[in-house]
């Protein structure tokens, strides 16, 4: 709390990004965990909550006659523009936020104060919901080719690896340790995924320290062991996910890639994915495009192309597709690495696994996949997502890209995934929110030292509890798309990859489709279920009455309650369906406020059946009345976890009009 220079500023304006002329007047509060803006308007008292950990950049802009503008960009792609009347207040808020957004100790993070009011037992159960030992068992391990190794007990060999690792049975501790010494950060080849159907596997490691000519017998033996663990194939693919040039440059530093001459029976393959710095800049460029005020189509498409973002997404997908095909069609095992084997390798292994195994396309399976390929194998969440103040050059949207790959696949295979887009968006949000302990630190070792499981809650349990919100209505366990491998076309279909406005422009609700097919179908399915139950009950009663009639007994029975057929609410009424600025820069077009008839706002029909699965509405329906007494607890208190979005209230139908 000592970093808060001013806890409250009045008469602050929150600028509407769509129509900048419209701004909401209200009060700004700084708490230990959130920035909160509460509108003055007595009808709505709309609240906007922003977690400090979501803040990416804060920009103080030149003071104008109306006040001092403060621009806050968030890691979940929300952009907040505030105008603070007094320059001094603005400065205080700015300085406070600069500090609050960059915590230096883990203990400052929200998850250590977040309390969803669960008892100890519930919290512990939450942490065991996703169990990797179970997952390896599901894959069919251990078996006579693969075994659980205790070589990394107490993180003795590699401190960024987990303790539980599967290695080929023929790989002795000697081989493993030898190999680890020949790999960057001692990340030796281990199993990531085992494909039961044909015994092929996906293994992962870091780059070998081969330089220009160095060899390591144990490392060569390690690859042999991986090949032998798959009797169906006489070779192993080694996939280096870096551009060839980058890999070659690494040789000068004593690192590099496998020489096919030294390793028997390997097929070496480059599949170029750019490094974290290129990806960071690419996202930056794309977000600049998203931020443009009324861009032309050319501005947008040119900017999208120029950012290179979709090219990078495609590169990751291509690598994943290559590996999935190698495993499922050629029956060959694959060793994947990049430099350290914790960014591109994680992306590619998880995309390949997702393509190969329908289990990972279920809700729980997807959590397992992230737990396995990302969390357990030491993806550096803290560095990549800037949870603690650190080197900005370490930050990069690595898992964001993976999440987008999943979305791109969902667009291609609408029935193949048990979960919906909202699930992906909420996971992305919580990777940055630090509200749950799952994504803290850079490795399992650090998390254990910090006693994360004893001190914080698990996101997986939270998502699982609310799973009804995350289901894809088109998913059916017995559908052909949910069986086996997903087959993508081999031709280079660039057009398959599309801009994901549901993620990057997700706070510009007006840009999203105004009616959600997913929500509509979920409502239909819910009603169907009720109908099924009613049908059964009716049949039972009918049978009974008929029996009674046969027996000529007179029974009196109550009239059945007619269940009301409710319309399905498909549209979120928080989305103001109002015209945008269609007049371009027509200066003289009159701007007259229309009657705020709500005919155009609430799009559809009955609200009775509205299942508010939008995070705006769901978790925050029970807000605390005042904000003055905010502790650092969850803003919603009670058993609800705070929503992941910060818009606290339904937008009313405010007509966005022609800006004159």
């Amino acid at each position, binding site marked *: 709390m000592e970093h808060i220079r001013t806890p409250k500023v009045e008469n602050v304006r929150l600028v509407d990004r769509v129509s900048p002329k419209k701004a909401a007047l209200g009060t700004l509060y700084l708490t230990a965990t959130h920035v909160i803006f509460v509108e003055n308007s007595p009808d709505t008292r709309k609240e906007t909550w922003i977690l400090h950990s979501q803040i990416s950049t804060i920009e103080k802009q030149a003071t104008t006659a109306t006040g001092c503008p403060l621009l806050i960009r968030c890691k979940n792609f929300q952009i907040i523009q505030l105008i603070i009347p007094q320059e001094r207040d603005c400065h205080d808020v700015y300085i406070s936020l600069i500090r609050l957004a960059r915590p230096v100790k883990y203990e400052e993070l929200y998850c250590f104060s977040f309390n969803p009011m669960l008892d100890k037992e519930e919290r512990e159960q939450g942490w065991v919901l996703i169990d990797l030992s179970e997952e390896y068992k599901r894959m069919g391990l251990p078996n006579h080719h693969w075994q659980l190794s205790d070589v990394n007990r107490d993180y003795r060999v590699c401190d960024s690896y987990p303790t539980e690792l599967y290695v080929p049975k023929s790989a002795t501790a000697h081989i493993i340790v030898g190999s680890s010494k020949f790999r960057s950060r001692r990340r030796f080849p281990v199993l990531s995924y085992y494909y039961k159907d044909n015994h092929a596997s996906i293994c992962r490691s870091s780059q070998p320290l081969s330089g220009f000519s160095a060899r390591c017998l144990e490392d060569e033996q390690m690859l042999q062991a991986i090949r032998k663990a798959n009797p169906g194939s006489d070779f192993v693919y080694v996939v280096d996910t870096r551009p060839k040039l980058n890999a070659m440059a690494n040789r000068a530093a004593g690192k590099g890639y496998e020489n096919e001459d030294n390793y028997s029976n390997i097929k070496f393959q480059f599949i170029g994915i750019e490094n974290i710095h290129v990806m960071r800049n690419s996202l930056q460029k794309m977000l600049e495009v998203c931020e443009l005020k009324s861009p032309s*189509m050319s501005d947008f498409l040119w900017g*999208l192309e120029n950012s290179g973002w*979709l090219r990078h997404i495609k590169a990751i997908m291509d690598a994943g597709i290559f590996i999935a095909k190698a495993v499922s069609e050629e029956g060959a095992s694959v060793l994947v690495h990049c430099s350290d084997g914790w960014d591109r390798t994680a992306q590619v292994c998880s995309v390949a696994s997702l393509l190969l195994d329908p289990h990972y396309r279920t809700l729980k399976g997807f959590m397992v996949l992230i737990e396995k390929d990302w969390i357990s194998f030491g993806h550096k969440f803290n560095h990549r997502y800037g949870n603690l103040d650190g080197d900005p050059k370490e930050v990069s949207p690595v898992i964001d890209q993976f999440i987008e790959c999943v979305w791109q696949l969902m667009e291609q295979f609408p029935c193949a995934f048990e979960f919906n887009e909202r699930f992906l968006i909420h996971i992305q949000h919580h990777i940055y929110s630090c509200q749950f302990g799952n994504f803290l630190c850079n490795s399992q070792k650090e998390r254990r030292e910090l006693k994360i499981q004893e001190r914080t809650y698990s996101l997986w349990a939270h998502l699982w509890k609310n799973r009804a919100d995350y289901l894809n209505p088109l998913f059916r366990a017995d559908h052909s798309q949910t069986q086996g491998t997903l087959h993508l076309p081999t031709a280079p279909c660039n057009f398959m990859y599309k*801009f994901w406005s549901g993620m990057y422009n997700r706070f510009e609700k007006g840009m999203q489709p105004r009616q959600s097919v997913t929500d509509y179908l979920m409502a239909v399915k819910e*009603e*169907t279920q009720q109908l099924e139950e*009613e049908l059964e009950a009716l049949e039972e009663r009918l049978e009974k009455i008929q029996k009674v*009639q046969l027996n000529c007994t007179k029974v009196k029975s109550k009239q059945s309650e007619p269940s009301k057929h409710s319309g399905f609410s498909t549209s979120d009424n928080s989305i103001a369906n109002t015209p945008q600025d269609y007049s371009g820069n027509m200066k003289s077009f009159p701007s007259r406020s229309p009657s705020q008839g709500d005919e155009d706002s609430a799009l559809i029909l009955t609200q009775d059946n509205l299942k508010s699965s939008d995070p705006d509405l769901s978790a925050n329906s029970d807000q605390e009345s005042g904000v003055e007494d905010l502790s650092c607890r969850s803003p919603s208190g009670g058993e609800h976890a705070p929503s992941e979005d910060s818009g606290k209230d339904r937008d009313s139908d405010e007509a966005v009009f022609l800006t004159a």
Partner: protein
Amino acid sequence: MEFAELIKTPRVDNVVLHRPFYPAVEGTLCLTGHHLILSSRQDNTEELWLLHSNIDAIDKRFVGSLGTIIIKCKDFRIIQLDIPGMEECLNIASSIETSEWRLSYVNKEFAVCPSYPPIVTVPKSIDDEALRKVATFRHGGRFPVLSYYHKKNGMVIMRSGQPLTGTNGRRCKEDEKLINATLRAGKRGYIIDTRSLNVAQQARAKGGGFEQEAHYPQWRRIHKSIERYHILQESLIKLVEACNDQTHNMDRWLSKLEASNWLTHIKEILTAACLAAQCIDREGASILIHGTEGTDSTLQVTSLAQIILEPRSRTIRGFEALIEREWLQAGHPFQQRCAQSAYCNTKQKWEAPVFLLFLDCVWQILRQFPCSFEFNENFLIMLFEHAYASQFGTFLGNNESERCKLKLQQKTMSLWSWVNQPGELSKFTNPLFEANNLVIWPSVAPQSLPLWEGIFLRWNRSSKYLDEAYEEMVNIIEYNKELQAKVNILRRQLAELETENGMQESP
């Protein structure tokens, strides 16, 4: 009431009539060709028979879904009708309203305007002689006619060809009178010119031009630039080429997509249509829309504005009627525009994917409001196919006059008669449709306007998985309906049995 066919709702029950010094009467309201009749259908109560010609003015009000129409008669009597149901009330009101519009047969022989149909709707106060004069002042004889009447507030969309002002600023009093006749007292209107100011100015050299504000002081002109002819055709050729090119990388794909400008055109057209709709619904102002000929971009804008404003145009029959009215009858030269498509090298001057752009825009709105349209994407694709090649006569010829000469009605089948068969209709029906009586405002941000894959990538990628998803969606909804029907039957059975039992029980 001149035309009995304009009666949309001939009968409404539970209407309450209020007259001074009489008790309120509840009864059935009937509209006939000449009378408005209210009867409680009881022997001893008086019936109200009101000649339409006695109606001097009407007011309408709404409280919730209860509408009230106050009728002021020429004999100074004032009566009030409470009509349950917004739709019914609006229909009654629009039928009895002393119409400011009339049907004109001035173009019966296609003599005044070869590209207009024989019957057009024009302001009542303008006689056919004036129309003939206006026709000489408008490109192609396309004098301003009614395109759409917004029931909610009585505002209208009119369309025409450009005025032939030429370089010396010719004017036409009748033209000014005609379009002013559409304005209510003290109201201003907007003229949306679908060309940029620059292009409109250049048109003067060729005898065309635009309305000078000095001569049309009650109108404000807005220029919205929508491209024409070969520019659109080239755009289509480039887009299809980009979609077919499998060799290039991601950057080249995006760059080719951008260079085709197709989505730019989509955005421009949609924006103009939204602006038009906004003038009508939000500004409460009538509009006149034209470009040069008034047969291309004009029709894109007038028809899309109706999709936005008018729920009926989002139904299958309503959309068919829209195409019939705003494209076929309005004289969009389908024969010329759709003679060739994206692959033909021999370029003629008149080809342009104007109609396809319109369909693409409809698809964009459908994508943003997936539950508000009675038809699905396949319906739009089918229309695209038939506009370019069809075994039906519907899209043949360039206008009604040509179709008459070709005797298409006698010699060919209508596309609609085939499409409207139940078996065909089911392919085009959107399972998600729920009537939405609101104005729908689409987003025109580039992020909201993707490529229409169903048309442009149709032959370049397998749609197997998407088709399966559609099927699954249909199944979910069909199964729900099936259960609903079953439950209703059982409920009824049960209720019957229970009353039976009850009767047996009571002595």
